[in-house]
């Protein structure tokens, strides 16, 4: 039976740099476990002869020619940034990485 443990949820939260309280971990672990369990029922129905799919449409090779299209102006690109400096996106100090 697939599922997710409280420890796995805590690990995922750390990878996503989300600070979750103990009760939130319990809460999300239960919810995510329910969701995974529900989705897992698909594999009970699908037999070996059904290939896994990542896309609902039977399409392949959708490509575009290597031709430049106009970009946003820097002002437009930065318009949603909470902070900016020197025409760049300004982000807080990055911890735990080097």
């Amino acid at each position, binding site marked *: 039976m697939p599922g997710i443990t409280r420890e796995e949820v805590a690990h995922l939260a750390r990878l996503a740099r989300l600070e979750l309280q103990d009760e939130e971990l319990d809460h999300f672990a239960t919810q995510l476990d329910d969701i995974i369990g529900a989705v897992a029922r698909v594999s009970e129905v699908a037999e070996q002869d059904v290939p896994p799919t990542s896309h609902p449409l039977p399409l392949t090779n959708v*490509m575009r020619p290597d031709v430049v299209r106009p970009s946003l102006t*820097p002002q437009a690109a930065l318009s949603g940034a909470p902070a900016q400096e020197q025409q760049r996106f300004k982000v807080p100090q990055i911890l735990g*990485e080097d």
Partner: protein
Amino acid sequence: MTVTELVPYEDALASYDPVMGLEVHVELGTKTKMFCGCSTELGADANSQTCPTCLGLPGALPVVNATGVESAIRIGLALHCEIAEWCRFARKNYFYPDMPKNFQTSQYDEPIAFNGYLDVQLEDGEIFRVEIERAHMEEDTGKSTHVGGATGRIHGARHSLLDYNRAGIPLIEIVTKPIEGAGERAPEVAKAYVAELRELIKALGVSEARMEMGQMRCDVNLSLRPNGTEKFGTRSETKNVNSLRSVERAVRYEISRHAGVLNAGGKIVQETRHFHEEDGSTTAGRIKEEAEDYRYFPEPDLVPVAPAREWVEELRGTLPELPRVRRNRLREEWGISEHDMQSILNAGAVDLIEATIAAGADSAAARKWWMGELARRANEEGTALAELPISPAQVARIAALVADGSLNDKLARQVIEGVLAGEGEPDAVVEQRGLKLVSDDSALGAAVDEAIAANAAIADKIRAGKVAAAGALVGAVMKATRGQADAARVRELILEKLGVEG
């Protein structure tokens, strides 16, 4: 922090067998990014080449660059890889602001090319086969600038500034299988592999592969196992080793460092390491995340890539002669040694010499000018040979003027100087600077007579049969004509006038 004692390289090799894995990222030279139509032109204003797709704005959808896929397939074919009949992109999730999407679009377990090899030639001519695990398509990240802190490094930085112009530029990551059996030549094999790969990428025309510009970057994985054992040791991954010399040094350093840790009874930590150009050392970076921590999953916004076999075969037909095969062919045509060819390759002169010969010069002259005077000039100015403002056709013309006796080497150097200074074509420089070699007897005769008259004692010696003394008179004539006399003709005239047989 404990300081590891480095074991001298030879001692490390006496006990341990190195195993390497090399990951090379090549930035493709496409006009647009991998998944959107933003320009990849260098040197643009910060954040002037972004769009909703490469900024990861909600609702934006990526579309694959056809030339990016084509380049990936051609690289795969040149590396003797199989090309996937069907493959997908995957999201590599990680928390870092260099990708505004918070994931990198890459390929995971379905690379477009896999199972190949590249034969590399070592300095002594030995061929070493490096097996290729895979080559896959992905995208580059944005550029971070860390503000605050002493050194511009991330430690102590107060905040970081992001320019996303580079985010989304197509990358091909080429991964070797574990390279075993190189032994003490491991550093040389690593360098030769990266050098050969760079030549191949350039020959394919898919990237300029300039390492100093970050267009090609290498990560070096290395582990040691006791001699005579099979099981691989724990590896370290030295990131962003960005010159051929550095690749060699990083491998060497890590062999010495690993041996030091192991000899002291310690364990190698599986981690990324930073390479330092200044002293060739490496220092610890972050502990490597497990692949599962990247939570790879198939990219739902892109449909699979399924290259038709006819297309793959058509692309196979566009492959150039392999650089190593071409070098060996040219080496034989030019009649030179492996060592000379290596020097020419290192100087970046192979294409220039070939083009100069194609423009009519003989191979000895073409090599002489590019590897002599021009290499010296490039070195003085700290520029690449190919960047000098003189073309192979112009060098061939100068060589022709030397060959037909219009110029001697000294005058030819002055013509080169004129061309480099922007004075025009070689013939125009000859004309303007008045550099024609003087060889007609009437013009030379007077200078010869003067030299004989001014050096009566030497002239007597020559008359008495000491022909070798003629050199002094030739020198006097050359001086009087400021080097523009045909020295061979001058010598003949001197002997003739003094009634001596040459």
